[in-house]
């Protein structure tokens, strides 16, 4: 784990407001904010000066919807200039309502259509392993409603069956799945051979522990529970 100085939360919140122009909603309206902040400040080994380092950790925002918190955190970490935040989804803006990896340094995949990130993440894990790059971890952030897409379950079953230990899935659960997940979200993973932990998605210390709680033998899932979607 890389040790970093915690970025001032107020700075990220200011960047977020700059991005959304929204003074009414508290930053907590962004369900992924704490997870992203913990990942980029305390967990991921990524370097804005070398965003293409083959030995870097990978963070894949599979749930490409509402990437404001993602952009704010990336800007705060210095992956791109802060003034990019001022023209979200403008005709010449590299930042859209769904991120595009060909436009934004530090963005590993273009996403938005739900259910693509975990499969890509499995492929990245396999590709790194085949090249002897055994240090990097691959973190894939999904939403509880996104898990409705069957493509995720192809990836969950395969990664579990083959013990693809370098993957960590993070499911931000703000209870937005139309039919819910009776029995809990983590069970969908653990029944397939993953390790799993469910934590308060607003508790940064608990998130940091969970996000580094993999056993290096099995893929790992962190379910981050936040307040229900408004």
């Amino acid at each position, binding site marked *: 784990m890389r040790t970093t100085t915690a970025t001032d939360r107020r700075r990220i919140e200011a960047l977020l407001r700059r991005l959304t122009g929204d003074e009414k909603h508290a930053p907590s309206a962004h369900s992924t904010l704490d997870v992203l902040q913990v990942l980029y400040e305390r967990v991921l080994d990524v370097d804005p000066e070398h965003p293409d380092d*083959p030995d870097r950790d990978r963070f894949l925002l599979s749930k490409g919807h509402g990437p404001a918190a993602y952009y704010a955190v990336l800007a705060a970490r210095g992956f791109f200039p802060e003034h990019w935040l001022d023209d979200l989804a403008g005709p010449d803006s590299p930042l859209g309502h769904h991120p595009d990896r060909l436009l934004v340094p530090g963005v590993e995949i*273009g996403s938005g259509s739900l259910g693509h990130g975990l499969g890509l993440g499995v492929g990245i894990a396999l590709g790194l392993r085949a090249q002897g790059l055994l240090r990097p971890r691959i973190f894939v952030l999904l939403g509880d409603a996104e898990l409705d897409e069957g493509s995720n379950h192809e990836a969950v079953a395969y990664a579990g069956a083959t013990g693809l230990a370098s993957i960590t899935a993070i499911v931000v659960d703000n209870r937005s799945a139309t039919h819910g997940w009776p029995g809990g979200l983590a069970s969908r993973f653990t029944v397939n051979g993953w390790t799993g932990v469910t934590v308060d998605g607003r508790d940064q210390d608990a998130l940091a522990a969970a996000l580094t709680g993999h056993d290096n033998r099995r893929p790992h899932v962190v379910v981050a529970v936040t307040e229900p979607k408004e």
Partner: protein
Amino acid sequence: MRETFIDTTSAILTEEPRTALVLADISAAAFAPAARRHPDRVLNVGIREQLMIGVAGGLALTGLRPIVHSYATFLVDRAYEQIKLDLDHQGVGAVLVSVGASYDGASMGRTHMSPQDVALLDTLGGWTVHVPGHAGEVTGPLRTAVAGDGAVYLRLSTQTNDRARPGDGSLAVVRPGGAGAPLVVAVGPVLDEVLAAVAGLDVTVAYTNRPRPFDTVGLRALAGTEVVLVEPYLAGTSSRLVDAALADRPHRLLSLGVGREDLHRYGSAADHARWHGLDAAGLRHSISAFLDPA
């Protein structure tokens, strides 16, 4: 063709550590020796075609060159959005290799047919498409594709011509007609039926096994007023390219290929060729009517 693909790919995996093969159970047994030699680069994800393409996209993002293989209907039709987003949108390529072209799997019914695969890839940009007409036309394009980085589709079939015409994919005259004679373009495995169909007619027959990018320069050099296009997949798939290439000339175009209708019939590939008018008699009938309207 499938055996040639398996042998060549197994050799490439040994020669070139940058390559990886992704399978969804189809042909897994044939690749078992390669999988034992290269367990990290021969990846069978089970019957999960969305994951198969997603994995290929991920492999390519790490710098590997993925070869992805299944039945055309599962590889292209079923996983179309993954091809669009997990490959194209991410800015990475792969080598997709299908079997079960059009109605090769006739006895298995419509669920195993894909006459629309090339048309689907045509909705995306920049794909190279190879449609070999003989097993001897597989290795060259496969090796070239694997050595590059682009998006390549290799469409293998059990339909085959009597002999191989490897070439470089540009239009090649197989049977010259007289000056200004109508041009008949045959794509891949339909060539022999086309040659039989036009026996005794004054037409030039030209062949290509690489319909994308279509050899429009060669087409302009060979075409007069009348052009007939015969393709082993959905009828009209390449007609927009032929029309665009000849836009500045008065011309007439007949596009023949597989029809859109689900026939709800089994039988053999030869039966389906006949039902779609792609056997020699059917082609003769269509081409004669076009060239010499009553």
